[in-house]
C-alpha cells in the first residue's frame, strides 16, 4: 500500500461535512499555519516540499508563489483552477465532491501565505452540482470561524466564492480563466505580464489547481521536509491519477510516486488489468494532450528500464520515446482500439475548443480534423500523413497559449509511433472501415538503446 495524504480519509462516512472532517484532524493544518507560522514561513514550507503544480504543467508551486508581486495597497488574489477539462482527467471532481473541506482548508492556508483576502474557485460549468457542495462547505467553515473576518482571532480575513464556467476547455489556461472570471470570452492573454504581476482585474494573482491547493494541507501537517521524502527525485509527495479507458477498475487513485507503470495498470490495488483478457496496445499517461505511447515504450523506457509513475520517468526519452505526467489523466487502450480513430476524436476536440485567437491553432486544428477524418473514412492519401505532420509542426510553438501545443502533440505522437497503422488505413481503405489494425507489433520488446544515444 502506498502512502496516502489526500484520500486517506475519503472513505470515512460524512467526511464531506465539517464536524466529521474536523473530528478526523481537519483544520489542524490551518490552525498551525495561521496561529504559529508567518505567511513567508508557509511559502517556505511549500517550497521545501517540492510540490509541483498538479494541473498539468508541473511547475514548482512554492516558486510560483514567490513570484507574486506585493505592491502596497493593491489587493492580491488566489484563484483555484477547478476547470478540469483535459480529456482523461476527473481527479479534481473527486476531491471537490467528496472532500470539499480539504480544498477549503488548502485555500485558507494558501490565501494566508499569499495575503489574499478574496479567493475564487473557478469550476467548469458542467460540474453543475458541485458548487452546491462547495458552498455548503464554505457556509460551514464560516459558521465555525474558518472564514470571514478575523479568522480564529488571528486578524486574517478571507472570503471564498465559487464561480461556474460555461463550457470552454481553454478556460483551464490561467489567463483565459482570469478573462472568463472577469466576465469575458476565454481568450488567453499575451504574457508577460504574468498573472503574478497583473492578473485578475490587473492585480497580482496566483492561479493553482485544486489538487495542488489540497496538497498544501498535508504539507503543513507533516512539514515540507517529510513530504519531500515521499516519491523519487523531483517527483515528491503523492499524485492523484484518474485512470480510464480499457481497464477493469477505472477511477481515481492516489499514488506515492514510487510505483511502475506496469504495476499501476495490472495491480489489483489500482487499475486491475485489462478486461476480457485483452492485451495492452497503447496508453496516454497524462491527459489527452501528452504523447500517446505504444505498450512497449510505455512499460519500458528506450534504455530498457521499467517506466515509473514519476514526472521524470514518464518523460524519459523526451517526446521521441517518452511522454509526460501531465494532469494524471491515464487513458488505456486495449488491442482492439484504433489509434487513427482516437486521434481523430482528439483532433475534433481541440478544433472545437480552440478559442480562435491565433490562426495556426484556429485553422490548423480544423485542417487536422478534416485530414484525419478522410484517413479514418477510407479517403486518405499517403501524402496526408506528411501533411498532418507538417500542420502540427506549424501549430506547435506558434500560438499565444499552450492549447496549440496540446493539439499538435497527440497528432505528432500518433504518427511518430503508429505510422504503419495510418499507412494501413490509406492502403486498405475498405478493410479499415470494417476492422481495426489491432495490436500489431506495438507490444513487442524493443531493442535497447544505449543511454548515451538518447
Amino acid at each position: 500500500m502506498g502512502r496516502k495524504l489526500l484520500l486517506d480519509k475519503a472513505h470515512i462516512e460524512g467526511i464531506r461535512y465539517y464536524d466529521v472532517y474536523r473530528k478526523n484532524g481537519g483544520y489542524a493544518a490551518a490552525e498551525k499555519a495561521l496561529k504559529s507560522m508567518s505567511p513567508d514561513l508557509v511559502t517556505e514550507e511549500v517550497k521545501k516540499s517540492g510540490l509541483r503544480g498538479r494541473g498539468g504543467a508541473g511547475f514548482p508551486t512554492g516558486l510560483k508563489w514567490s513570484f507574486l508581486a506585493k505592491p502596497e495597497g493593491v489587493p492580491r488574489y488566489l484563484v483555484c483552477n477547478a476547470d478540469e477539462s483535459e480529456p482523461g482527467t476527473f481527479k479534481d471532481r473527486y476531491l471537490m465532491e467528496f472532500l470539499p473541506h480539504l480544498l477549503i482548508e488548502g485555500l485558507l492556508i494558501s490565501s494566508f501565505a499569499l495575503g489574499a483576502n478574496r479567493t475564487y474557485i473557478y469550476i467548469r460549468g458542467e460540474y453543475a452540482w458541485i458548487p452546491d457542495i462547495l458552498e455548503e462547505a464554505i457556509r460551514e467553515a464560516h459558521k465555525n470561524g474558518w472564514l470571514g473576518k478575523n479568522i480564529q482571532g488571528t486578524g486574517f480575513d478571507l472570503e471564498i466564492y465559487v464561480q461556474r464556467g460555461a463550457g470552454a476547455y481553454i478556460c483551464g489556461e490561467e489567463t483565459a480563466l482570469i478573462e472568463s472570471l472577469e466576465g469575458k470570452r476565454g481568450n488567453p492573454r499575451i504574457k508577460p505580464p504574468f498573472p503574478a504581476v497583473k492578473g485578475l482585474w490587473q492585480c497580482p494573482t496566483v492561479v493553482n489547481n485544486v489538487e495542488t491547493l489540497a496538497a498544501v494541507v498535508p504539507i503543513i501537517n507533516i512539514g515540507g521536509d517529510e513530504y519531500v521524502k515521499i516519491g523519487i527525485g523531483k517527483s515528491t509527495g503523492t499524485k492523484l491519477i484518474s485512470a480510464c479507458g480499457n481497464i477493469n477498475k477505472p477511477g481515481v487513485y492516489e499514488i506515492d510516486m514510487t510505483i511502475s507503470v506496469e504495476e499501476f495498470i495490472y495491480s489489483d490495488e489500482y487499475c486491475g488489468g485489462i478486461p476480457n483478457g485483452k492485451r495492452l496496445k497503447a496508453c496516454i499517461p497524462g491527459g489527452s494532450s501528452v504523447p500517446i505511447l505504444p505498450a512497449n515504450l510505455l512499460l519500458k523506457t528506450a534504455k530498457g528500464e521499467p517506466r515509473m509513475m514519476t514526472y521524470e520517468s514518464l518523460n524519459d526519452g523526451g517526446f521521441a520515446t517518452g511522454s509526460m505526467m501531465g494532469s494524471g489523466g491515464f487513458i488505456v487502450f486495449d488491442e482492439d482500439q484504433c489509434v487513427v480513430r482516437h486521434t481523430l476524436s482528439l483532433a475534433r476536440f481541440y478544433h472545437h475548443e480552440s478559442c480562435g485567437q491565433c490562426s495556426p491553432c484556429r485553422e490548423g486544428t480544423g485542417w487536422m480534423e478534416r485530414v484525419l477524418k478522410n484517413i479514418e473514412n477510407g479517403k486518405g492519401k499517403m501524402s496526408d500523413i506528411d501533411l498532418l505532420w507538417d500542420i502540427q509542426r506549424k501549430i506547435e510553438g506558434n500560438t499565444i497559449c499552450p492549447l496549440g501545443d496540446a493539439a499538435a502533440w497527440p497528432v505528432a505522437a500518433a504518427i511518430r509511433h503508429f505510422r504503419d497503422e495510418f499507412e494501413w488505413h490509406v492502403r486498405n481503405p475498405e478493410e479499415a472501415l470494417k476492422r481495426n489494425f489491432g495490436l500489431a507489433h506495438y507490444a513487442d520488446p524493443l531493442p535497447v538503446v544505449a543511454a548515451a544515444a538518447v
Partner: protein
Amino acid sequence: MAVQFSEEKLNKVKEIIARYPEGKQKSALIPVLHLAQESFGGWLSAETMDYVASLLQLTSIEVYEVATFYSMYNLKPVGKYLFEVCQTGPCMLRGSDDIIAYIREKLNIGVGETTTDGLFTLKTVECLGACGYAPMMQLGKHFREHLTKAKVDEIIAECRREANN
C-alpha cells in the same frame, strides 16, 4: 411575455454581484447567464441577453460575445430534456459511438435535433470529466454515467413519466 426575473432571482443576481469588488460586476455575467437560461426556457434569446445586459449595465454586444463563446449556452430553443452525450476519446474507447447511435434510433432524431413533441434534444459534447465512468451524458444538472442501451431506455422512460405528471 416580457423577460423578467422573479424577486427571488433578482436577489440572487444581487448576491452574485456582491462576490466581486465594487465596479467589477461584469464578472457576474457568466453566472447570471446560467440563471437566465434556467429561468427562461433553457435557452438564451436575444431578448433574454438584452435583459441581462441591462441588469448588469453592460452593452448588448458584451453579452452576445460571451454567450456565443461558451458551449453551455443554448442560442436556440431546446427540448425539455437535453441529452448531452460525451463523444471524446476516453468515452469513445468505452463505446460512446454506440450509445449515440442508439439514442438517435430510439428518439428518431439526429444530433442537434429535437423530437417533434419538443421533449428531447440530442447534442454531442466534448469531454465532461467523467472518463472513468464512461460512456456518459449530462442531463440537466447531473451526469448519467456507465450508460448502456438498457440505461438509456430507462432514462427516456423516466423523462416521459416526469413530463406526463
